[in-house]
């Protein structure tokens, strides 16, 4: 187990190096001279040369890459053009909001998907199954940003019962401890704050989670159907257990293993979905920050965010592999 994890961990190093190379090459391929962009058009050649020397742009590409890699490995991506702060500080400040949203989305997806999937599989081809499967397909086919806009239209526009943007109503949230508003408010006993946080959280989390919900529902259904035909299930029935017990104790507990994996795999999709859903709901997380950075052509911030997202993605995949190995001891590769 230990050696497997170590090998797997070492295996991610070349991947990370190559990723940084790919991002570096993309920056290099960007049209326009960065010195001209920063200095403005009417600067003298002398000034330009000086600036290029100061920023190391006169050195060979591989030296530039090495420098880029060394500072990126330390988490130093330079200063953001737009915010005039170190890139890492800007990003770290925004991460809790994204994590809070992603967590809520996963919870919503799991709460709805698993019972629906089990229910559909317990009565295959019934109306329950058909409706459930159709909803699953809807979830998969619906672009989350459009779903988000429609939720705003319905709940904020027509019914006017939920807020359409942001994380909190001004003045309600208390002191920042963990960065998770709902948790912070709960710690401080600020129940109005908890409620306010949840109200702001619900629509974006639903929009972001809809895709995962659809996929999880379908995976749960097919996994339960598969387990249903195992011999130990027949045995459980043969010894006279009531159907409900057979279903929940023998079928579902075994059927959930692939579901857990899919949750892990879909976390990556959720991560990139957050970029667009956060924009729709003006959610102040790292996803909407990326869009702001893109529009402001804030290249250091874009680079930092892309690398942070990618590292997070690689880390998630690593953790899934660990989880695999824990759940199923046969896996060793």
């Amino acid at each position, binding site marked *: 187990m230990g050696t497997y994890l170590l090998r797997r961990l070492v295996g991610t190093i070349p991947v990370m190096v190559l*990723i940084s190379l790919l991002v570096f090459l993309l920056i290099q391929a960007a049209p326009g001279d960065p010195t001209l962009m920063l200095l403005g058009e009417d600067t003298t050649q002398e000034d330009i040369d000086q600036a290029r020397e100061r920023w190391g742009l006169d050195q060979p590409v591989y030296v530039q890459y090495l420098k880029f890699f060394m500072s990126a490995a330390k988490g130093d991506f330079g200063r953001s053009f737009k915010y005039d702060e170190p890139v890492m500080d800007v990003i770290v400040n925004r991460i809790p909001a994204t994590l809070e949203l992603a967590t809520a989305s996963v919870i919503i997806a799991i709460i709805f998907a698993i019972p629906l999937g089990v229910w559909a599989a317990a009565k295959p081809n019934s109306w329950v199954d058909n409706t459930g499967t159709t909803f699953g*397909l809807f979830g998969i086919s619906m672009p989350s940003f459009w779903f988000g806009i429609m939720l705003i239209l319905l709940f904020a526009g027509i019914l006017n019962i939920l807020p359409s943007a942001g994380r909190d109503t001004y003045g309600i949230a208390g002191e920042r401890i963990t960065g998770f508003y709902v948790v912070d408010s709960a710690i401080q006993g600020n129940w109005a704050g908890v409620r306010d946080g949840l109200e702001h959280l619900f629509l974006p989390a639903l929009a972001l989670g809809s895709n995962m919900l659809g996929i999880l529902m379908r995976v749960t259904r097919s996994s339960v159907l598969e387990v249903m035909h195992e011999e130990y299930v027949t045995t459980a029935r043969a010894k006279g257990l009531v159907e409900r017990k057979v279903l929940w104790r023998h079928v579902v507990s075994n059927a959930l293993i692939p579901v857990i994996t*899919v949750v892990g795999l879909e976390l990556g999709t959720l991560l990139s979905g957050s970029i667009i859903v956060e924009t729709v709901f003006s959610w102040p997380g790292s996803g909407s920050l990326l869009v702001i950075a893109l529009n402001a052509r804030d290249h250091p911030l*874009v680079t930092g965010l892309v690398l942070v997202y990618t590292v997070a993605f690689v880390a998630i995949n690593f953790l899934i592999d660990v989880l695999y190995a824990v759940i199923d001891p046969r896996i060793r590769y």
Partner: protein
Amino acid sequence: MRTKVYLGGSVVLIFIIAGALGPLVAPFDPNQQSLETMLHAPQWFWGPHFLGTDNLGRDILSRIVFGARVSLLIAFAVVFISGFVGVILGATSGYFGGNVDFTIQKFVEVVWAFPPLLLALTIMAFLGQGLFNLILALVAQRWIQYCRVTRGQSLSLKAREFVISAKSLGASDAQIIARHIIPNLIQVSLVIGTFAMASSIISEASLSFLGLGVPPEIPTWGTMLADGRIYISTAWWLALFPGLSIFVTVLGINLLGDALRDVLDPRLKRAGTGI
């Protein structure tokens, strides 16, 4: 099963017809602006603007029809290029094994290490808007699915009798891959291609929504949604119809893909990829 084919098929057919006939079906020029017809609500059959007009007085139905054309063009290009690259790399990787396989698979691993959409976003951000860059950005990760599945298949294909006999008759590696391996990978590629089509329509719309897709003068569903989002509280039809078009089209393609998979490759379903 049959309903899936009919439903999915007819949606896809409408989509293709609308895209192909574009200018003939659209009642108006999609870019024709008019101050007099600004923000008209859908008039259905009681007026010239069936689905209403947007903030610049442009006819929404016409823009949706032209948007179908753009989406169709991009999605087909993306699916074909990804399929081409993915199948060739996958077949080569599986057939040769060894160092070739190792190199290709390492490359797959690196490209796959980017969260979906993020690589496309980065490419668009650094290379700039444009049709070519957009297709490149969407292909960037989409060939991998083909590559992974076809690699596995060609691994097992190369041990089959017909490949071995072709080899003993003196066929070169290139001949074997082109004549014996790749034709056997077409079916599975078709299934992957259908789902890739659905996902590239959504990705294209996402990028356009963020202002990183095709140049703004070309009407696409994603840009229409982005424009309409601002007017959500006053003019709901601006955001509803383009999004609905994306949703229905993708739903149709997914239905068709489900059916196609059940017919062509029932193994995929049993293998647990049946999602």
